[in-house]
């Protein structure tokens, strides 16, 4: 009886090991983000294959996610509600906006898979005429500084970037 039990345990362990090895040898599935030589901002969103979502749905979800971030940025109207005391030095809401842009930049700098999305955010932020000018300038500065560094092309809509924003962006470190 004892020998029978030992044999059963041995067979069970051997089966487990064999099953595990077999699984390891399975061919890898296609990567979620296929490598391409050229991508435009937003292009990666079309390629994502979120479970149960069509590429279009996935893109819409991602866009909605960025819209939420964009909505958090301070607007020109927000500044109009401030008092003279609050605007003598840089208002708190502008610093908070800078923190959000900085956090997105930092995350993408550390994780290259987030760079397309980050660039998309910077582009939208720079082109949004509702967003406060200093924030737009910081976003545009990031776009022009990061295109050569990250090697991600981002066509900007020239008509959406006023000279003031461009001048400021070019004067930032």
């Amino acid at each position, binding site marked *: 009886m004892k020998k029978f039990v030992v044999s059963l345990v041995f067979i069970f362990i051997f089966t487990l090991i064999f099953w595990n090895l077999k699984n390891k040898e399975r061919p890898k599935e296609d990567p979620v983000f296929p490598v391409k*030589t*050229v991508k*435009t901002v937003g292009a990666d969103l079309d390629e994502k294959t979120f479970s149960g979502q069509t590429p279009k749905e996935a893109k819409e979800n991602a866009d909605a996610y960025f819209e939420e971030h964009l909505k958090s940025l301070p607007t*020109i109207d927000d*500044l*109009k509600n*401030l008092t*003279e*005391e609050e*605007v*003598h*030095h*840089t*208002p*708190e809401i*502008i*610093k908070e*906006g*800078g*923190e959000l*842009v*900085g*956090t997105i*930049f*930092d995350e993408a*700098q550390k994780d290259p898979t987030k760079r397309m999305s980050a660039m998309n955010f910077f582009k939208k932020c720079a082109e949004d005429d509702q967003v*406060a*000018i*200093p*924030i737009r*300038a*910081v976003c545009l*500065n*990031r776009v*022009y*500084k990061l*295109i*050569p560094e990250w*090697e991600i*092309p981002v*066509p*900007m809509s*020239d008509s959406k970037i006023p*000279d*003031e924003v*461009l*001048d*400021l*962006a*070019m*004067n*930032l*470190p």
Partner: protein
Amino acid sequence: MKKIIATTLMLSLSFSASAREKFAGVYFDSSIPSYQIQILKDDLSYLYKSSIKDIDAELKPMMELSKVDGAHLYNWIYNRVKYIIGEDYRVGGRNLVTKRGHQFPSTPLPPSILNKNNQYRATLIMSNTGAELYLRGKMNKVLRGIRLDRKSVFAPSPRVGILQVGEGLFLERLLINENIESEANRIKRLGTLFHEARHSDGNSEHIGFLHSKCPEGHALSGLDACEPYSNGAYSLEATATKTLLLNCRTCSNVDKTKLSTIIADSLTRVTVRSHVKTEAQLLEEIATFQRVIDFYVNLIATNPQVGEPFKKELENLRARIKVSEDQLAELRSPVKPKKLDPRPEGTFKEVSVRESSNLMNASLSK
């Protein structure tokens, strides 16, 4: 015996909570909480010891410095800031002192001063009380000053250098990051200090480099938070912050972006920006565009299939670079941007770099 020890302890505690003291020649009033004094002292030490390698091209001419290093930057501050008082210090009542018979320079006052009521005092983060005392004194033809450490400090010039610091300068939610003593937070506070120090400059209609109402179309339209000249407090704050940021050794990506936002915000207050770009800035701008253009040219050459959007972008960038080149050509022609005269008026003593460095070194060696 116990009572003596208890009294001594209580006295020590009360002095440590707020104690007047002098550091590197700057008087810190007892109305400033001791932790704020310590931070400000460390900020000034940081500035003095700073190793400045990268310099914004505008800084040197704007501050009229012969050299840009920690000692010269501290000297610039020290010539404009000699007394710092706390938010709770009331500039009025028994603290206010006056003296009749003082002969003020017979120069005109800034046109906007007559419409202003407590312009500086309304600011909670930091304000230049010295310039305000001088302007009010000159307006009423009575020398004004305040009582500090039982002594009268009069303002015969905006260069008397009395600043009032508020809690806003130290509030956690207004910091760049959580560490109040981080390099990024020091840079932010020093930027504010440079801003306020600029208000100690100017003569005649330029006294105090007063802010003016932001014009129609500006996000802060109607508020006294702009300057229509290129060397005022906002420009100087931006340029000084930028230079310190360029030399920051420990700033994170988030710190850098937040400080860049402050620089951008300060520059939006300068309502003649399109006329104040320097040659170095334009050259940098052209170089930045050129790097992006090079990238696109290479991209199109190696990937001919990329199509029209990138080619159109390339055209846009070439148009941008053309604008910058035209601005550069215009700048090289004799067109001068509007600047205020920073020479101060009234009675004051200009302190040399050697003197201010000696004061700082004496304090640091204690």
